């Protein structure tokens, strides 16, 4: 059974520009599906639209989407919150600068606890355990810090811990490794892969980097100017691209020093 299915998704600005046109894709449980494309191709807008996070003046014009068989987007209107969470590009900016990591985790755990009816006790220990589960060796030290006192990679780990704490069935990752060192990038990718393996959740992985997509995803959707050009296995896309733009994108990636 498919986990996430998106059909006929179009995104428009208030002044009539179409940013994404008739997009469709599906994700299976335990699968990482990529969306690749250059800046401005509409891949991030697509990801944001699924969680209702589009910026002011941009909205979903039409489209349907469902998660685990439950529709959450019907004809362009959000009809319920999908059980999905998201991690973002620039993790340091994605965390509240005036709150310590501990306060941010406790805030999340309290919120989740209220939703699930579990108690307030043991939140501190749970926060510690969460950080340990994403490979942070000194959780206590990290809990006491503010986001600006931590590296980008560390903050992204914290973001993954928070995203996982909500026990989603889908994780949306928007350029999660852009701007990080290559070694840290590899660690974060490994963290996402192991999270998928241990929890069986699906991941929608947005990136402009064909190299990162190739080593992370099984299938990939290629976007260009708001349109879906190709949606196929990564191997097929790499070795026998059906679309002229995909070929161009591949060529430009291969010219750069490989990061793999």
């Amino acid at each position, binding site marked *: 059974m498919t986990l996430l299915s998106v059909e006929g998704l179009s995104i428009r600005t208030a002044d009539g520009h179409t940013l994404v046109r008739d997009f469709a894709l599906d994700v299976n449980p335990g699968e990482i599906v990529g969306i690749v494309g250059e800046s401005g191709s509409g891949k991030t807008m697509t990801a944001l639209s699924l*969680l*209702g*996070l589009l*910026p*002011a003046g941009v909205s979903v014009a039409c489209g349907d989407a469902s998660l685990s068989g439950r529709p959450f987007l019907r004809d362009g209107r959000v009809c319920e*919150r999908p059980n999905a*969470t*998201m991690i*973002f590009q*620039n993790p340091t*900016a*994605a*965390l*509240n*600068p*005036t*709150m310590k990591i501990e306060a941010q985790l406790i*805030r*999340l755990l309290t*919120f989740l606890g209220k939703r699930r009816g579990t108690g307030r006790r043991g939140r501190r220990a749970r926060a510690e355990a969460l950080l340990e589960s994403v490979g942070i060796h000194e959780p206590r030290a990290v809990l006491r810090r*503010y986001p*600006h*006192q931590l590296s980008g990679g560390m903050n992204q780990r914290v*973001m993954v811990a*928070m995203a996982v704490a*909500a026990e989603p069935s889908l994780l949306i990752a928007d350029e999660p490794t852009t701007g990080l060192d290559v070694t840290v990038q590899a660690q974060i990718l490994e963290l996402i892969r192991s999270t998928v393996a241990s929890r069986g959740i699906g991941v929608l992985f947005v990136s402009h980097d064909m190299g990162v997509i190739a080593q992370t995803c099984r299938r990939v959707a290629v976007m260009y100017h708001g349109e879906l050009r190709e949606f196929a296995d990564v191997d097929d896309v790499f070795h026998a691209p059906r679309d002229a733009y995909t070929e161009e994108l591949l060529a430009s990636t291969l010219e750069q020093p490989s990061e793999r």
Partner: protein
Amino acid sequence: MLRSGLARSGIAVVGVVGVAVLIFFITRLLPGDPARVAAGQYATDAQVEQLRRQYGLDQPVLVQFGRYMVDFFRLDLGTSIRTGQPVTDELLTRLPATVELGLLALLIAVVLGVGLGVLAAVHRHRVVDKIIQLLVVFASAAAVFWIALLAIYLFVNEWGVFTSPIGRLPRGYAPPDPVTGFYVVDALLAGDLETAGAALRTLLFPAMLLGLHASPSIVKIVRSSTIRALESDYARTSRSFGYPPGSILFHDGLRNALLPVITNIGLVAGFVLAGGNVLIEQLYAWPGIGQYAYDSLQENDLFALRGYVILIGVTYILLNIVLELAYRRADPRVAVAEGR
């Protein structure tokens, strides 16, 4: 922390001395001859000359400056030409009236400014926001003396909501025993609820006007910084988890919007204590330092004016130190940038 605290006090001392030096030379540029004014319209040249000697105004500028600085460090601001009393004493007896009015006005300005600013930010680009923006334009464009006169006419003469603006208490009330110098507090300490109520009601009228007059800049800053915080990446993260709007507004919006507001509140506090209150105190016959400055200026009372400006300058510097501490508490990044 201790080291930066010492450095800060050092900078403050330099600031205070700088203010004193600057004021000496600026007040020398004031038009008119203080000795001439003090002697009166019909005094002979010999009498004027005698007064000039008495105040030391016949000495070379550098000698005058040296005496002025020595007196300054002894907290002696000279003698008022107009009243013949020591300026320091006169200012200190009048200070509580101004501070009482200023603090309440500041409170009103902050409550009004933050409230309207947040309201505008939450409803940004919609009708509520437009209305608040319009109010802000009116409040900052209207002259305070005109608004005050209109308010006195309406609230006192027409509707009788407030008593006549004739000082800190209505007719028939005796001032409470001075403890803090704040009439409302002193009356409460004395257990005199009636006087406290009357004092508060008398205080509220000018404080409301002064607060209203000072609030537009706070509204503007709170609105823009709250919008920025609500549209930030971290607010988006909070929305991605589905946090309730109230939590996002408070933790992501207000908490981060507070930083520029703290800076602005410093400016507004200075305005409320020094700038705006000269007019308001004059219109409400409020016996504070603003009225004192106005009277001194009318009669070219050089030493009283100097004393007033020095007091305001020192208050500004102290205010800035307090704000800097508040800023460090509110924004953890400031402390880190200083290597704490």
